[in-house]
């Protein structure tokens, strides 16, 4: 579903970025991407989403190279950022219609999807109001709905549970599971290791732009360690080095 090979991206005038990162996400994976602040999680996700260019490597989404055919690749996934900077001058429904138009979703299908997800997230009554009046959590919900209405095969999320109320968190987890059951995949970054441990079947830990661990959650559990202690070990190795 998503293959990242030897991805390298460094920001100009800085040594920050990602170096030689390789990952493989298959259908039905819920892949957790964990790392400390400034490790390179958001940079990785933005490279996949086509927001940033990168220095070298390849990113293949559902068999399509994002560098060679970005339009086709972008039709197959949806990206949800950590900070929902949306068009404050649009109403919620205008934004959803905008996204639906870009993905050329037919009238009946978009009505059905918007009704379904906005009811689940209890956002329907606010869709007629300007996004500038929304709270952070409401914006987060709107961005999630917009990501789901074109039924992407791959969902890329950057810290999706930040700002969501508990009910919406449960709903989002259910949606993620459903996407995987239907042959899709999820790739998300998070700081909440409990969520990653319970929700994901695979995880990767990134440190200072480099991938240090990529494994099944089962192996972590079977080793007798918690994800948290594994993460702390990884960080400790750096300190002792």
């Amino acid at each position, binding site marked *: 579903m998503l293959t990242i090979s030897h991805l390298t991206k460094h920001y100009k005038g800085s040594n920050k970025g990602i170096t030689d990162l390789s990952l493989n996400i298959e259908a039905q994976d819920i892949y957790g991407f964990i790392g400390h602040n400034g490790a390179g999680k958001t940079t990785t996700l933005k490279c996949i989403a086509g927001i940033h260019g990168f220095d070298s490597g390849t990113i293949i989404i559902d068999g399509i190279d994002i560098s060679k055919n970005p339009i086709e690749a*972008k039709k197959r996934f949806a990206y949800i950022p950590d900070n929902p900077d949306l068009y404050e001058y649009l109403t919620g429904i205008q934004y959803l219609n905008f996204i639906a138009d870009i993905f050329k979703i037919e009238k009946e299908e978009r*009505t059905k999807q918007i*009704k379904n997800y906005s009811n689940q997230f209890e956002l329907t009554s606010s869709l007629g109001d300007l996004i500038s009046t929304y709270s952070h959590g409401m914006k987060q919900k709107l961005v999630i709905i917009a990501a789901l209405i074109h039924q992407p095969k791959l969902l890329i999320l950057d810290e999706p549970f930040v700002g969501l109320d508990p009910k919406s968190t449960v709903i989002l987890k259910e949606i993620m599971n459903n996407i995987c059951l239907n042959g899709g995949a999820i790739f998300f970054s998070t700081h909440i290791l409990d969520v990653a441990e319970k929700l994901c079947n695979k995880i990767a830990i990134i440190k200072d732009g480099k991938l240090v661990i990529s494994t099944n959650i089962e192996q972590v559990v079977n080793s007798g360690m918690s994800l948290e202690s594994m993460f702390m070990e990884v960080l400790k190795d750096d300190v002792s080095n």
Partner: protein
Amino acid sequence: MMSQISTLSKLELINLFGFNVFRYNKDKKAKRKSYYLIFTYILLIAFLFSYVVGFSYGLIQIGQYSILPAYIITIISLIILFFDIFKIEGVLFSRQGYEILSPLPIYTHVIVISRFISMYVENIIISCLILLPGLFVYGYLIKPDLIFYFLFLFSVFFIPLIPMALSIFIGTIITGISSRIKHKNFVSIFLSISVSLFIIFTSSKFSSSTSDITIEMLTNLSDTIMNILKKLYPFAVWLGFSIINKDIITWFLCISISLIIIVLVLLIVSKFFQIIYKNLYSTYTKNNYKIGSLKKESILFTLTMREFRRYFSSSIYVTNTIISPIMALGFSIAIYYFGFEVIFSQYEYHNLALDLIPFIFAGAFCMMNTTATSISLEGKNWWILKSLPLTTKEILDAKILMNLILYLPFFIVSQIFLILALTPNLLDLLWLVLIPTCLILLSCVLGISINLKFPVFNWKNEVSIVKQSTSSLFTGMGGLFISIIFIILLFIVPNNYTIFIKIAFCIFTLIIAVILYFKNNQTDLKEI
């Protein structure tokens, strides 16, 4: 309180003209762009210097040196008044920063004063750029004594105060009125444009009264100009003459009046600041939406509609760009009502008027267009377009189309007035329509090209992008420059060959527009 004012003012001033970002930015590409902006400003300052030196020299040469200080003070004041009115909502009542400061133990009037100080410092710099070259010419030719220099130089700190007080007062009233109304932006746009058109009309009315000059007026030129300045801005005359006559008492009275006025205005604004701020940023929610039937639109339509909504959501974006087509419309209405013979009668080549008008009309349209800042104004939302399955062409086409659709009604109405006024034959009609069309197309595409080269996404307020960015300055200058070059050629070539100038203009502008259009569409927006 003084320490709070000092701390907050430093915070406001630290990034004056983007200096702090330039200082600490390690991105070489961004630094290079800053150099381009600095170069643009240097060019503009050079033009300004030349203009001031030119008219100062001219006035002194015809023996009118006594009115030079008043003239300079009037120009500075008009510039500050005109530009500051548009800044009040975006700078004085800026949301950015206020939400961080308001929970802190800081007085409201401290916030108002610190924001005023940042505007004041900018205006001092503008005042110096106009005053110093005039002073240099005056000093070189007239050789006044030291008191003159002291009075004139020290006045630079007080000249901006009254125009600033007026623009803050008017701007606050506009912001205050619009903040209480649901459709704040439209009210703010309407009021801001009305006020600025009033300023343009009033000042041009006074300067155009030179067309009524009689022989007696010419022989008493300084009185004539003085009467005009007295009607326009009497304070400039009082201050100017106090400097010339070394009348320290009058000079001191003038600067005291300006100080008292600005203090009063700041006190009034501080008193009402929180009420206006609260109303300005209060939002209406109905919270009663029910999903009905939804429409499907094409990608171009949906992107263009989004551009329009973005445009009209910002009073600063609108007021700073709509002036261009309004001025073009005003020009055509003036031609219709006063007749082109009257307007062009003072020119030796008035028979060239029919040839000149399309170029002047075109130049007016291109001074400030929307595409020049449309990419930068995406700001923090830029990620949305980049992550969607959209081609560069689709994204940029919508920006160009919005600009063209916006200009269309002004263009059509202006053309009607020009056609009625000039009653051109078929060929002249063709040039009247074709020349501005070609330049408007080029200007729109050029705006995109320049904004792709000099994008700025991490802005604090829209004023810095719409009014002060490299992109907006270069694009405005570019369109005008092309127009002026061909106007000059019209004067140079024999009358029989003016048709070739027009043909060359259309071909040149269209070819450049097409080349730039295709080049823009090749841009990989990931790198922007």
